[in-house]
């Protein structure tokens, strides 16, 4: 299968301090790639390279080649790139609007005005994230009144309203309770059929449960990549073995 995202020799630095060095990575289409590694190893930085957010930040330099479906992301228009690559943050940040408006915000911005089309899109994305039955009767309710897990699913739904090809998630479960984590994990496994998913997680058990491909970073270097089961069963590198056995992290 052709990779949808390819990174070649990607390095990044904040204020001259290197955060990533020489990353070569392929993200396979319609699979879940989990990025793991100790805190401060550059997981989130790597994720933010993939949708170009990092390229826009001041005092940050990014070098190397990042391609989405073969096209250099630097040559894409900012909003096209953002529509094709969605990003969900660690803390759920629904806009201070109603549930409905949260989901129509981006589509309206991108020119969908037809009420019926918007209604259908809201329903479809809510169904995808399994939130529709829970909120269908009060779509006009403030999104901030939802529980943390529901808010995070709403944020995933909001990212999906832009119809992305790739969905990036930055530790989406770290602020949630066990039950919500389960719901989100099974959601991600379902989403894999339609979307390419890249998730940063510090929860090794989570990576083990859902990852098709695992990427292990340490100190801004890519140490090892492998498919999920075999990586966890038998990591090749000493560093990865030490990390998995809990010697550092």
């Amino acid at each position: 299968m052709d990779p949808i995202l390819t990174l070649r020799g990607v390095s990044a630095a904040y204020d001259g301090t290197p955060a990533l060095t020489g990353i070569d990575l392929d993200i396979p289409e319609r699979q879940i790639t989990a990025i793991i590694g100790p805190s401060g190893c550059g997981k989130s930085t790597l994720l933010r390279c993939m949708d170009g957010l990092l390229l826009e930040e001041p005092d940050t330099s990014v070098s190397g080649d990042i391609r989405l479906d073969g096209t250099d992301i630097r040559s894409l228009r900012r909003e096209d790139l953002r529509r094709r690559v969605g990003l969900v943050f660690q803390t759920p940040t629904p806009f201070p609007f109603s549930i409905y408006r949260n989901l129509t915000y981006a589509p309206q911005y991108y020119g969908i005005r037809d009420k019926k089309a918007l209604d259908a899109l809201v329903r479809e994305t809510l169904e995808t994230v399994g939130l529709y039955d829970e909120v269908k009767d009060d779509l006009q309710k403030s999104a901030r009144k939802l529980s943390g897990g529901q808010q995070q699913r709403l944020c995933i739904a909001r990212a999906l309203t832009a119809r992305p090809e790739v969905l990036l998630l930055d530790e989406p479960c770290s602020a949630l309770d066990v039950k919500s984590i389960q719901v989100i994990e099974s959601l991600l496994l379902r989403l894999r059929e339609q979307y390419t998913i890249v998730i940063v997680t510090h929860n090794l058990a989570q990576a083990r449960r859902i990852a098709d491909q695992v990427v292990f970073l340490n100190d801004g270097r890519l140490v090892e990549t492998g498919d999920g089961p075999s990586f966890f069963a038998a990591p090749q590198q000493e560093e990865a073995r030490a990390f998995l056995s809990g010697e550092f992290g």
Partner: protein
Amino acid sequence: MRKWIDRIWSAAVVLLTALAVLALAFVIYFIVREALPTFREVPLRDFLFGSRWMPIDYTGSTSFGIFHFILGTLYVSALAMLLALAVSLGASLFLSCAVGARTRQILYPFIDLLAGIPSVVYGFVGLMVLVKLFLKAGVHTGSCVLAAAIVLAVMLLPYLVSSCSETMLKVKCRYEGAADALGIDRWHFAATVVLPASFRSILLSMILAIGRAMGETMAVMMVMGNANLFPTLLGKGETIASVIALEMGTAVAGSTHYHALYAAGLVLMLMLFLINSAIGLLRRRFLREEV
């Protein structure tokens, strides 16, 4: 020992709080007590809705009607508020959403500085610059409600900008990433997320500002012309605060004139109280329906 220190400490805090509350209570009591005798001689309706203010009987009968002063106060405050609100919303959005932290740190002190300029200086500048400009533009004598509103608007700016931009900055930091990840343009984000989400604190800052606006005496007095006329945009007008400031010194203590000025002060206080409660109610409604 420790216990005693705690006790003294809490007693001191209670005492100081009581002092503050008492001070307010005395002010209200004093104003009400001095105001009430007015209504033995002037019916309340004539006082509020009469438009003839003739406190001394040069020409026969005295008359105490503050209708024009009430209107003048409301007119100049509302107009100033409108002008200040438009400018400060723009400035706050600019400060919170358009510039970086470094520029913000340079610009903030300038706005805070506006709050530190004495009002007589504002009045003086208004008189020397604005009134002259209005004169040149063909307004008789130059002094007018609009000139006063402009001067007042500048005085209100720091109050509005500092609290609005603070909230807007918080809102922006919180939702910026989410909007950015959706590819939303910065200005669209500012207009559709930051502005509505800051609505409540905009109302709060309006409470602060309207109090300042309606009570402001010196600067307004210097440029508004102080004539007991029905206030029009380019005509002279007089506010309650100005009447009190101008006439209190010459009013004979204990005369109806003296009491009427206190009554005017009471009316001003009640107006302010009503407006503040209205904005407060509005704000609470938005708190409940916050979406």
